């Protein structure tokens, strides 16, 4: 087994705006099973952060427990990281975000970590619109504990560990997130980086909770015949809402799209998400049409991927609270304890 990746990279690797190559966004060599979808998502995160010219020290990656939650070791080796407790990634991220609003927060979780033990935490993070990207590496099983069915395993799906069709309805995290008022909802597939990378980039540009449910086959325990989260099943049933192109603020839009079939979503920071729509009568900025599209696809057994819904008026938690622009963790005693005179004024206002 090779534990150390060779130090050499392609000599012509391009540099981004902040002078880094992709190598600067890599992490340790993965110890996940060969072919695990999670590794592809890690690669997509590396690609997205490189393309967004993220300064690695301006990003925090936070995870729970599971194979998926191990992945932050395998990307962004120069960023902040917190591998927290099973299902507790949302609260740790919320706390960190409250203390320092200047970082980009990248939460990484699994379907077990989110839809089972972490369910309570998840819905509240959605509801509060914490400014973060929340990626669920969804393989329909508890990979780390040897592949038991998770709560996202579809009804009737068979995994290697369960061997029998799942008797329960799977939790649809996308539907749930929309129900809870999420402001950015997407679904993707680890095997489709051309879709996943722009989604991660758009999620980082979105002010508020950006949820990406990413189907990520567990090659070891859930890539068998009868599974609805295997490479071949997802490829056969993937229905993309649109082809995506993320255009950062300073770049000119050069791609031409047919009238009507395309939509430009101007994000909060001025970047543009170009959607070449494949699904007619669907408008990602319209909650109702998004909802019905998701339900429709579900009923027909298709896995709807792409950007599903975005609230362009999103107000993240800090905006809702009206906290100061200065990160709380940098406020000094002087600002935090403005003295008895200021206290008097406040008290007077309460009388």
């Amino acid at each position, binding site marked *: *087994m*090779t534990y*150390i*990746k*060779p*130090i*050499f*990279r*392609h*000599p*012509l*690797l*391009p540099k981004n705006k902040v002078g880094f190559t*992709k190598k600067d966004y890599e992490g340790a*060599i*993965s110890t996940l*099973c*060969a*072919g*695990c*979808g999670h*590794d*592809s998502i*890690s*690669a997509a995160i590396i690609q997205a952060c490189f393309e967004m010219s993220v300064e690695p020290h301006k990003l925090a990656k936070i995870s729970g427990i599971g194979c998926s939650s191990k992945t932050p070791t395998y990307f962004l080796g120069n960023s902040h990281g917190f591998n927290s407790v099973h299902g507790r990634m949302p609260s740790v991220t919320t706390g960190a975000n409250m203390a320092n609003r200047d970082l980009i927060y990248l939460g990484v979780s699994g379907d077990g970590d989110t839809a089972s033990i972490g369910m309570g935490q998840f819905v509240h993070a959605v509801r509060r619109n914490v400014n973060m990207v929340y990626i669920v590496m969804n393989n329909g099983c508890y990979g780390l504990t040897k592949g038991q069915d998770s709560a996202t395993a579809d009804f009737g799906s068979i995994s290697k560990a369960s061997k029998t069709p799942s008797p329960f309805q799977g939790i649809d995290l996308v539907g749930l997130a929309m129900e809870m008022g999420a402001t950015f909802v997407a679904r993707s597939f*680890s*095997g489709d*980086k051309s879709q996943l990378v722009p989604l991660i980039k758009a999620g980082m540009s979105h002010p508020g909770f950006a949820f990406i449910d990413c189907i990520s*086959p567990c*090659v070891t325990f859930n*890539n068998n015949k009868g599974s609805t989260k295997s*490479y*071949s099943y997802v*490829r056969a049933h993937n229905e993309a809402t649109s082809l995506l192109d993320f255009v950062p603020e300073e770049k000119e839009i050069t791609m031409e799209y047919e009238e009507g079939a395309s939509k430009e979503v101007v994000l909060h920071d001025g970047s543009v998400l170009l959607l070449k729509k494949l699904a007619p009568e669907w408008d990602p900025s319209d909650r109702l049409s998004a909802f019905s599209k998701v339900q429709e696809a579900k009923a027909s057994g298709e896995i709807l991927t792409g950007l599903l819904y975005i609230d362009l008026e999103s107000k993240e938690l800090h905006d809702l609270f009206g906290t100061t622009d200065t990160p709380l963790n940098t406020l000094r005693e002087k600002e935090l304890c403005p003295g008895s005179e200021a206290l008097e004024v406040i008290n007077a206002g309460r009388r």
Partner: protein
Amino acid sequence: MRPTNIQEPEYFHKVVDCQHACPAHTPVPEYIRLIAAERYAEAYMINWESNVFPGILGRTCDRPCEPACRRGRVEEKPVAICRLKRVAADNKGDVKQYMPKGPFKPNGKKIALIGGGPASLTVARDLAPLGYEIHLYDEWYKGGGMMRTQIPSFRLPEEVLDEEVGYVIGLGIHTHFKHRVESMKEEILAKGYDAVFVGTGAPKGRDLKLPGREEAGKNVHIGVEFLANVAFEHIHKIGKKVIVLGGGNTAMDCCRTSRRIGGEDVKVIVRSPFKDMKASPWEIEDAQAEDIPILNNMPPKEYVIKDGKLAGMIFGKVRAEYDENGKRKLIPTGEPDEFVEADDVIIAIGQDNYFPWIERDLGIEFGKWDMPVLHKTTYQSTNPKVFFGGDAAFGPANIITAAAHGHQAAVSIHLFLQGKDVLADRPAPKTNLLRQKMGIHEWMYDNDVAPDKRYKVAHTDKRKALKNRKVEVELGFTTEEAFKEAERCLNCDVQTVFNTSRCIECDACVDICPTSCITFTTNGDEADLRTRLSAPALNTSQDLYVSDLLPATKRVMVKDEDVCLHCGLCAERCPTAAWDMQKYLYSVTKAGAVL
């Protein structure tokens, strides 16, 4: 693009850059691994089979493999392939036991080899074990050709030369030394040889006729003659002030030799710019390290004679201009000419072939520049009995090229004398692909990529080296250094072999590849595909490996071979073993099997 045909022997051969660039196609990574494993005798024998002179070449080879080495494309410097070869030779112990041993059963055929250089010796080595009676003619008293007469002992000790020439002569070659062939017709063809090989090199050094040349007389030397005279101890001394004219390797050997036999103020003067000099960079470096300045852009104009004796030379001043085709013109700068003092001048501006001894009525056709008309693959002349090789074939080259020619000429001669077609019946190279998998994540080769920079070879102390022309300058790697240098080799012969039907398109290989070689994309023509890969694919001399259409997505796998580290990570990360690491052995088929 069409799916790559990896059955075609040259496809994977090209991936082994060093071997592909080696005229004799020595299986470099194979012997480098043996050196790392301290199996020096085997490493030596692999070389001996391919190039006949491992100890000599490990010191003197022109190393076309090194500029080609893949390592030089992923970091600064290539693997020190040549110096590793010497390590095999230095530490091999007794290898005679592995070599063919005579007497060989005679096959009744007689062959003459004219010239005793590396080309003829290679023919002899390949054909003697097949039972041919071989007669080798050379004008000097020992074999080796220019390796003996030209390459100075401080680069190539005589013992090394004697040993390796001896292995060949010891196969029962009938030598006719001190025999200069003056007539092909009478001395050779009349004797009824079944085939003749001409390996007489390019022995004639060029003179430079400028005003004063005649008066300067004995103080002006022709480089190749000078070196031969020093080698055979006819010259022991040279003046204190020496000018060497020319920018090639001969000039470097002349100036360094002069420094060892009395030259104190030795200068190399070249008419063209430094960067256009033909000499190998390391030879230039070694000359400069011996306090020999190199003056460029100074064409010689005349020999200056004072009191009937050479006093120096006058040089003009030029600068180089290149037209859009890169063709160079030397334009006078208008600066005044410069006089450079000298007691002796050595002219090292090139060599020519010399064939007046081959009569023109023997069916051996001569063409442009009075060079023999030959078939490029078979080395057969227009007289089917007569073959050429080495510098005699296409003009001056180097030892490894001479050996490569020798192998091919030997194949031709053997076919010819069996009544076969020298072209149509040529044997294909032998190839073999061998799986390297040992366990889930274990390989039969060391797949770690060492980050080390190229190691330098230690040199003898300069004062000591300059005192005696027989003291070898380069000391060679110690076995410890050799191990570390060997670890730098990327094992380019361990090929990444892709099996389309196994691939599930999980992207694991794309994600792990350190040098971004792999892409899954829709097919296109080569120029188009090259713009759509994971990393820029600008080196068009390196192939793209393209798979069949993948069943699930109708895309293709495209791998740019250019900077693949052969680390095996794609195969380690592949869940279905769609990638496999397989060692590719390519060996040029010789007239007779040696190993």
